């Protein structure tokens, strides 16, 4: 009998599509790597985002079913960083937590895992987001040294000890910092984007314009309080200095100054500079998602409904950062919606060149035919709808956390700007793409 009910419940869940709602999101201020979060571990950042979300929504943590967090640079001490962040923020220990990783779309992955868990009836209320503290990057020894240290665990007696000591070479002590490079190709993402910008003929000027736009829009959003509205304050022991704003936004940058910068990844032919690329960022963000019925029951006020989402994988050699073009095409197909129905668009800005390349591909009939199996282009993106409150180029991009920021901002923009649908998309290392469509929630 119980079994039948459960089955029925599950089928109902599967059938009713518009069932999962986004309540609200909260993030820490995003800070340039190596600044004020330097002494923090990444779980501590996550703790602020989760606690801030709970305070903002007034949700009793006992109603949380799962916590899912994304992260990229993981600290071995806190492998399941979601668990540590949740416990430190006062989430009861009965709530199980998982950490997921999918490069720059880790938080998107975490949120979608949460959606899935609610869909199949494993959870009603999920906190999903991500944390990244690039300042907490574990520095390792070279592989050669690690092997030596590993076998040193079996040392017995003085002879073995001496043997071990004499086996050491100065080069063994050179620390190895994990590089943000593609493992398969060995290239850094900047190099890949530089290549892509060249391929799709995105000029240096276009990129610098877009970067400047990002900073200016973020500056306006900050002044208007839109960014603060999505943030919690961070104040750290033992001094408890209050951090309440992002420190990467430079609304007063001069266009000439941007143009004067040297190319960062390819000195000779490159068009990518430090200014039109996103910078290493520390930060955390969390989103509260729930089944609509549970949200109602708990008196939570949803901001948006999750319509659909998609993930894609592409060629690593040529299309490393083209994920958004693929994923947007896919999610539009899945949902039966069109690009011009989208009122709000939030694109992750890994690089200005990457955003512009993807937009170009979406507008291209050739690309649609050749790569997407469509008859004609996916559609034209109205740049006026894109990232109106700034983006990763200006606000910053903590790898594991950006996805939650995108969802939160998109939902908030729907309410501030008015509109029905919002599109979110992001690229990721490993040649992955993600896109999601949400709809403004109206009770």
């Amino acid at each position: 009998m119980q079994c039948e009910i459960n089955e029925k419940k599950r089928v109902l869940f599967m059938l009713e599509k518009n069932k999962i709602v986004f309540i609200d999101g909260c993030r820490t201020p995003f800070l340039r790597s190596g600044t004020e979060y330097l002494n923090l571990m990444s779980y501590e950042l996550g703790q602020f985002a989760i606690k801030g979300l709970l305070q903002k929504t007034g949700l009793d943590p006992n109603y949380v079913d799962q916590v899912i967090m994304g992260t990229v640079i993981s600290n071995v001490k806190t492998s399941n960083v979601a668990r540590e962040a949740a416990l430190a923020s006062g989430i009861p220990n009965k709530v199980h937590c998982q950490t997921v990783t999918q490069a720059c779309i880790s938080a998107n992955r975490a949120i979608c895992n949460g959606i899935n868990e609610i869909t199949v009836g494993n959870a009603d209320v999920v906190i999903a987001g991500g944390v990244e503290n690039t300042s907490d990057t574990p520095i390792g020894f070279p592989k050669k040294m690690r092997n030596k240290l590993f076998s040193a665990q079996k040392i017995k007696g003085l002879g073995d000890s001496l043997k071990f000591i004499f086996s050491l070479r100065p080069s063994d002590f050179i620390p190895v910092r994990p590089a943000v490079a593609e493992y398969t190709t060995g290239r850094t993402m900047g190099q890949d984007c530089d290549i892509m910008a060249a391929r799709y003929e995105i000029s240096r000027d276009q990129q610098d314009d877009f970067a400047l736009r990002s900073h200016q829009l973020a500056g306006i959003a900050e002044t208007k309080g839109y960014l603060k509205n999505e943030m919690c304050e961070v104040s750290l022991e033992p001094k408890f200095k209050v951090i309440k704003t992002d420190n990467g936004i430079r609304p007063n940058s001069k266009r000439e100054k941007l143009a004067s910068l040297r190319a960062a990844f390819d000195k000779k032919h490159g068009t990518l500079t430090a200014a039109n690329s996103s910078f290493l960022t520390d930060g955390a963000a969390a989103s509260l998602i729930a089944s609509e019925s549970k949200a109602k029951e708990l008196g939570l006020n949803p901001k948006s409904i999750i319509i659909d989402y998609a993930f894609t994988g592409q060629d690593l050699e040529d299309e490393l950062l083209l994920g958004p073009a693929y994923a947007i095409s896919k999610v539009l197909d899945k949902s039966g919606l069109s690009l011009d129905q989208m009122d709000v668009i939030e694109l992750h800005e890994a690089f200005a060149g990457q955003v512009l390349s993807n937009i170009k591909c979406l507008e291209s009939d050739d690309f649609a035919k050749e790569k997407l199996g469509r008859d004609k282009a996916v559609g034209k993106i109205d740049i006026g709808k894109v990232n109106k409150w700034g983006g990763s180029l200006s606000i910053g991009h903590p790898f594991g956390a950006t996805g939650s920021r995108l969802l939160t901002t998109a939902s908030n923009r729907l309410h501030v700007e008015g509109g029905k649908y919002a599109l979110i998309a992001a690229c990721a290392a490993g040649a992955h793409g993600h896109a999601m469509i949400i709809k403004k929630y109206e009770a």
Partner: protein
Amino acid sequence: MIDNYFTKEVSDGVAFLYLNQKDSKVNIVSPSLIDVFGQIIDQIISDDSIKAAVFISAKKDFIAGADIQSFKAEEVGDFQPISRKGHLLLSRLENSPKPFVAAIHGTAYGLGVELPLACSARIASNHRSTKFALPEVKLGLLPGGGGTQRLPRLIGLQASLDMMLTGKNIFARKAKKIGLIDELVHHSKLKIASKNLALSLVNNTLRRKRKVSFLNKFLDSTSIGRSIVYKEARKKVMRQTLGNYPAPLEILNCVETGLKQGQKQGYEAEVIKFEELMIGSVSKELRNLFFAMTAKKKNPWSSDIGKLNTLGILGAGFMGSGIAEVSLNKGIDIVMKDVNANTIQTAKKHLWKNLSKQVKRKSLTKLEAKNAITAVRGQVDYSDFDKIDVLVEAVFEDMEMKQKILAEVEQYTNDDFIFATNTSALSIEEIGKYAKHPENVIGLHYFSPVSKMPLLEIVRTAHTSNRTIATCYDLGLNQGKTNIVVNNGPGFYVNRILAPYLNEAMLLLEEGGDIIEIDNTMKAYGFPVGPFALMDEVGIDVGAHVMTGDLAEMFKRRKGAVMSEGLLKMNQAGFKGRKNIKGFLAYNKKGKKIRGKANESVYEFFDKPLKVKFDLSDIQLRTTLLMVNEAVLCFQEGIIESPQDGDLGAIFGIGFRPFTGGPFRYLDQVGSDYVVKELERLKKLYGDRFSPCDLLLQYAKSTNSFY
């Protein structure tokens, strides 16, 4: 009968005697348990299949203490038989041919320490809930289960005196270090480890090695050393108790007798002295106080308690951060709002310092400390105030300001929110005059420093709803406070009875009294601090504020009122007491009191009279009886609802001679007629302010007592 207290389980020839008191959450010692103990020890000794036994608890604590109410003694000979029976039993245990091991997890108080002391060995869990104490001294008693004899022999004279004279908690690691415990294990391993220990003791005795410094060896183990320890301990006890509390001295006497004349004499002394203390009034009143405190732990409005997930605190200053401090780790979110971000930062630093201390002491885990501090949100605006269930306002003491703030927060809060004002003098009724929901307005009078002062005075108005009282009462309990609920009136209860007392102390100054002499005289009388030291602690500015408002007006209207203006003058001259090291007493530059020295410049504010030698009892009676009379008047007017509240408020709020049990217990002891007679005498000498109130006169005429 045995089944009511023990569950027995035998494994590999070791009997596990689970202390498992039926129908009770904890194991507590009562006369009937002592009988059962005897039987079970006999059983073990006579059962050939059993090689050894382990005392262990089936509850979350080992032995939480004694059921004090079940032990009674009115006259000599009442209690000695029970003591002797207990001693006999413990000595049978000590001399048993089979080893007994005590395996302790959780609280071990009183006999919870003394029973293990009579066992062959003690093993304990290293859990932070495991703690040992001999708290008898706090109830005016001595450890009567052989503690004064066995403890010094096991852990040395100094450590044992420290434990017995303070009654403080000794946690697991410390207990192992001082030799009270032989082995520490994880609580999940307690059973198997105690079994192994018991079996190993069947054929071998335990060899204890304890590192003792040469000096401690000299002090603990030589007769010259010991006599130094006794002398110093007596000196210290006398300095602290001023002879008002006999128990610590008797503990010293018992220990000394045992170590000098042998255990037999020691045990005998313990039996005699324990009963003596039981019969004496000091212990009786301290026990009454304990019962009253215990009774207050029950919320009388428990069915009306409302939701309290988020506590708001307005003002992050000394008071605000103190209130936050006692609310940490209670599952409550704290929103601290202040106009100044730096004040919040300072408050958080202060909170973290305390939390870190607890982590270092291992009474808190790092995670718990993190949770606690993360739950405190500081802000300078009213964002998310709609989440607040109870808002404690601790801003500047100004009526208009408080009314304005209430109106301001009402714009941001939900309709159910409770507005609790932490004022020490302003009328709650008046503060809530323009409130949207006067039923949600209440006074929460915390005492400074909040973390140390045990009392919370909850002030209700005619409109305050039961839900509001219930929720705040619950909050107070959560914060570890003893609550009294009083009705709104000038100065409420505590400050109301304090005011005439302090005023009289200052009038004494005007008449030529000496600050130090008055303070010392009052201390000798049983107040933990003298009136002038108290004013310095509370703050002269605070005192002056209390003495200018409604309360002062009320006193001024009385027949024969004489008010000292000295405090107001001091306040105007910038004296604030301890906090700016300008007060009645002299302080060094670091803010430490210079013992026995007053701030001579203060006399100026009291007309610098020629010094007069007062009769000490005159000082004591003039001040104290005014307080007692005012307390009765508060009862008469319905400010307090019971003499019990009056006693608790006076003792925990002011430090009214605890061993008397409070003003009302004191009246019952000495007789209301005696106090009326004294008041009439003082009235003739010093004026109408000593007129006894009507209710007191009534009690004096009848034979009724307040309890």
